C-alpha cells in the first residue's frame, strides 16, 4: 500500500471537519423540523416537507448548482453575505453547507421515525405534570428520540464523508483547502497510475465512518435505559 501524501492527510482532516461540522450544524435544525412535522399542525407543512426532501431527490450536482446560485455573489443570500464581508464559495464552510443540505433529509427522516414511535400518552403525562411544550420537547421528546437522532446523525455523517457532487461545485476541489476525501479519490481515479491511492483513501473513509457508526450505536444504547 502506498503511504499517504500530505495532501491526502489534509483531505482526511478536512473530511472529518466537514462531516462533524455538517452533522452538528444540522442537528438542531433537523430536530426542530422533525418536531414540527411530527407534532405540530400548521399551514404550509407540505411546503416544508417538499423543501426538506428536495436535496434527496435531486442529483447532488444539481443541488450544488442551486447552492451556487443561492450563495454566489449574485445569489440572494450570497449578496447579503457579501455585504457583511463573508465569502462562502470555495471555502470549507461551503463544503459544510453542501454536506449539511444533502444529508438533511436523511437526518429528518430518521428523527421522524423515532418521534412517531413515541407513545402520545407520555407527552400527555408530562403536560399534566405542568410541562409546557418546550419543556416536554426537551425532557420527553428529545431523550426518547435519541435512537432516531443517533441513527440519523450517523447516516448524515457517513453521507457527508461520501459527498462529492455538491461539494465540488460550491467548495471547489482545492487540495489542502477544500479537497475532501471523495474529491481526492476523484483526482486519483483520474489517472490510471494512481488507482491504488484511490483505494487507500476509500478504505480510510470506510474506517472513519465505521468508527462513528459504532460510537453512535453505543451512545444510543447507553442514553436510553431500556431492557
Amino acid at each position, binding site marked *: 500500500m502506498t503511504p499517504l501524501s500530505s495532501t491526502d492527510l489534509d483531505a482526511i482532516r478536512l473530511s472529518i471537519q466537514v462531516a462533524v461540522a455538517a452533522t452538528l450544524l444540522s442537528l438542531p435544525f433537523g430536530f426542530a423540523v422533525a418536531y414540527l412535522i411530527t407534532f405540530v399542525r400548521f399551514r404550509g407543512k407540505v411546503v416544508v416537507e417538499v423543501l426538506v426532501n428536495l436535496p434527496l431527490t435531486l442529483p447532488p450536482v444539481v443541488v450544488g*448548482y442551486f447552492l451556487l446560485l443561492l*450563495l*454566489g455573489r449574485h*445569489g440572494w443570500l*450570497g449578496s447579503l453575505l457579501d455585504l457583511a464581508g463573508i465569502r462562502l464559495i470555495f471555502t470549507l464552510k461551503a463544503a459544510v453547507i453542501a454536506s449539511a443540505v444533502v444529508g438533511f433529509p436523511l437526518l429528518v427522516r430518521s428523527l421522524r421515525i423515532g418521534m412517531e414511535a413515541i407513545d402520545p400518552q407520555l407527552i400527555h403525562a408530562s403536560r399534566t405534570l405542568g410541562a409546557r411544550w418546550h419543556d416536554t420537547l426537551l425532557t420527553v421528546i428529545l431523550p426518547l428520540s435519541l435512537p432516531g437522532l443517533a441513527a440519523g446523525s450517523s447516516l448524515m455523517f457517513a453521507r457527508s464523508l461520501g459527498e462529492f457532487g455538491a461539494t465540488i461545485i460550491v467548495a*471547489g*476541489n482545492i487540495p489542502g483547502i477544500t479537497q475532501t476525501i471523495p474529491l481526492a479519490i476523484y483526482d486519483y481515479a483520474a*489517472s490510471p497510475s494512481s488507482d491504488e491511492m484511490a483505494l487507500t483513501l476509500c478504505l480510510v473513509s470506510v474506517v472513519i465512518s465505521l468508527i462513528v457508526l459504532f460510537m453512535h450505536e453505543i451512545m444510543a444504547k447507553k442514553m436510553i435505559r431500556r431492557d
Partner: protein
Amino acid sequence: GTVNLSVAASLKEVINELSDSFAKTHPNLKFIKNYGASGALAKQIESGAPADIFISANPEWMDYLKERKLIDTSSIAIFAYNTLVFAGSPGKASSMQELSRLERIALGSPKSVPAGEYAMEALKKAGLEKLLEKKLVMARDVRECLMYAERGEVDGAFVYKTDALQAKQAKILFVVPQGLYSRVTYPDALTAAGRKNKDAAAFLTYLHSNEAKSVLGKYGFSIY
C-alpha cells in the same frame, strides 16, 4: 502573492508540473489550484469563486464567461490542442470504417463531454452515426471512456491522445482524421478579477513559453 487557477481536469498533470517549476523561480508565489469540469468552473467563476486564470477544455465555456464580462478579453489565447484517437485492445479496429465490426464503443456523452461531441461529429462526417447508434455507450467523461476500454467492457473508446497515452492495457488503435472534426482547443485567459494580479499575468505568459510547450508535448498535447 497567490494565483488562483481554475483549470479543466484533463490538464491536471501539465499544470501541476508547470506551476511547480514556475514556483521554483518565484519562491514567494503560491498557487491555489482548482481542477474540474469546464462548465462547473465557468459557473463557479460566474458565482464569484476566486479565479485569476481560467483554462477551459473548449471555447464554448470561455465564450460564456466572455459574454458575462468576467474575462479579460485581451488575454484570451489558445493554450494547447488535443487530438482525438480511438483506443482499445490491439487488433480490434484500425480505421473508422472498421468500427462497424465492433460490438460496443464508448464515447463521452456528446452533450456534456467535449471529447464526445468531437467524436460524434467525426462519426457523422464519416457516415457511421446510424450504423453505430445502438453500439454507442455514452460516458460521463473521457476518463470513464478509457476505463471501459481498459477493463474490456467496450471494444474501444474515443478519447484524447493525452489520455490514451496514460493507459496500461488499451492502446491507440488509430488517430481520428482531423478532417472529420473541429480542432480540440484549450483556450486560456485572465479573468476579470485576475487582470490586476501581476503574478497571474506572469504565469499566463509562462504558460505560452517554450518551456511550457515542451511539457505539453511530453504529455501528448500539440501546440500548433
